[in-house]
């Protein structure tokens, strides 16, 4: 049976992707899960795995080509059609870095197409070499594979693309779109974190070290429960229509060292135990920082949470990730004078800010949403 390997969709807003490099060749035997292509989207460079086992019959798209989602990239024979598997490689990975550098190599010289042999072009991509700078020794000045190799040997390797720079571009693009298209409104609420802290201390001293919870797990769950009960904050706004989501997949903004920031989703947070949410959060944070995310995690968020819990700021006023319609930002948990039963006391407090989309909801609904999050945090044993 012949099957097709297509440009994957990594979210409702993704229209196209660039095939950066093949990691296979015609005739190669591949098995489910093998990485066979690198694809670049506005979310970063993605390691695309093959969905079935078989033999690569034909590669249909040249590296450097941008194609719409769903475009057939390759044909496989003897493959069983299965659910596509993909994983994300952040630009800090050496391979992805090289791929980005390669992607930047112009395929066209200013005066037209560079005279270069196909093998030389592929090698130049792999080496991250600007082919316009390579002198050609072949007939009519064609750049040969040998030219590329000797140029590479004689020239210090071009610095790989700076990952922070690429990530800034990605963030800038998403946030510009957010601020341009979404009429945000913002509401803020400060509440005591006393009950939640006591709960965490009690829990964490009574369980094994792997089962300890961080405050983020509580925050994620509290937001997920509010999102479930108020579906107008949980879903996508596309083409002038809001579609509430049927599940609550909470995106968590996670920073990696080096200025990278992504917001992969934890699926069905409202239906998971705190322990399960925490386990996934740990796993996700590790994978963000070491470089591997799965495609569905980037595509699936229905609402986002962002936290600057350890940075000492009072509050964060976040921008919604399109096409979502709400994001909740948590400031730091700080000791502040607070009135408890008529007496001023030092109490850990937390300020949460909701940014929501005025095309879908208004401030009244937003206030109820935040009140639900607050109430959930006052009774953490119910989370």
């Amino acid at each position, binding site marked *: 049976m012949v099957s097709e390997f297509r440009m994957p969709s990594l979210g409702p807003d993704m229209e196209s992707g660039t095939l950066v490099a093949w990691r296979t060749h015609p005739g190669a035997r591949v098995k489910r899960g093998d990485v066979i292509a690198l694809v670049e989207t506005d979310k970063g460079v993605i390691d695309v795995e093959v969905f079935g086992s078989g033999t690569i019959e034909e590669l249909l798209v040249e590296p450097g080509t941008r194609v719409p989602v769903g475009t057939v990239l390759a044909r496989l024979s003897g493959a069983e059609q299965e659910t596509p598997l993909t994983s994300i490689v952040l630009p800090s990975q050496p391979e992805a870095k090289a791929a980005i550098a390669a992607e930047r190599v112009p395929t066209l010289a200013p005066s037209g197409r560079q005279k270069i042999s196909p093998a030389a072009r592929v090698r130049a991509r792999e080496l991250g070499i600007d082919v316009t700078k390579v002198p050609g020794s072949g007939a009519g000045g064609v750049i040969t594979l040998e030219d590329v190799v000797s140029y590479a040997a004689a020239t210090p390797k071009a610095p790989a693309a700076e990952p922070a720079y690429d990530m800034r571009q990605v963030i800038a693009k998403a946030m510009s779109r957010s601020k341009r298209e979404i009429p945000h409104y913002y509401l803020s609420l400060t509440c005591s974190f006393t009950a939640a802290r006591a709960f965490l201390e009690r829990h964490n*001293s009574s369980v094994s*070290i792997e089962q300890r919870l*961080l405050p983020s797990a509580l925050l994620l769950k509290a937001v997920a429960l509010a999102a479930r009960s108020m579906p107008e904050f949980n879903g996508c706004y596309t083409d002038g229509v809001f579609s509430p989501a049927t599940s609550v997949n909470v995106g968590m903004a996670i920073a990696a060292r080096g200025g990278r920031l992504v917001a992969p989703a934890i699926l069905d947070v409202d239906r998971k135990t705190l322990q399960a949410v925490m386990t996934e959060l740990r796993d996700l944070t590790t994978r963000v920082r070491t470089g591997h995310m799965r495609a569905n995690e980037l595509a699936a968020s229905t609402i986002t949470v962002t936290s600057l819990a350890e940075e000492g700021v009072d509050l964060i006023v976040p921008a919604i990730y399109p096409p979502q319609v709400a994001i909740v930002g948590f400031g730091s948990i700080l000791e502040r004078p607070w009135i408890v039963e008529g007496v001023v006391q030092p109490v850990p407090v937390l300020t949460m800010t909701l940014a929501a989309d005025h095309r879908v909801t208004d401030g009244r609904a937003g206030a109820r949403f935040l009140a639900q999050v607050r109430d959930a945090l006052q009774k953490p044993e119910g989370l």
Partner: protein
Amino acid sequence: MNEVDIEARVLQLFLEVAPDVDAAKLRRDVAFRDQFDFDSMDTLNFAIGLHHAFGVEVPETDYRELASLSKAVAYVARRLHERGG
């Protein structure tokens, strides 16, 4: 296990939590979070790593003693000594 062995192992565990950190630039007496973005999730993962590698309990209240490489080494050495190891 002497302090040199402990330090090598602790450093290895730290780098497992923060593989993107350049070990050559790590200053052993400066808090991790003052040198790199190192947050509570990293601290938890580091504590879990120490627990598994050395078999010592690391209660949450001791996290501050893991703040830098030299502190973490001293902490592990003390805990091993207390355990009679």
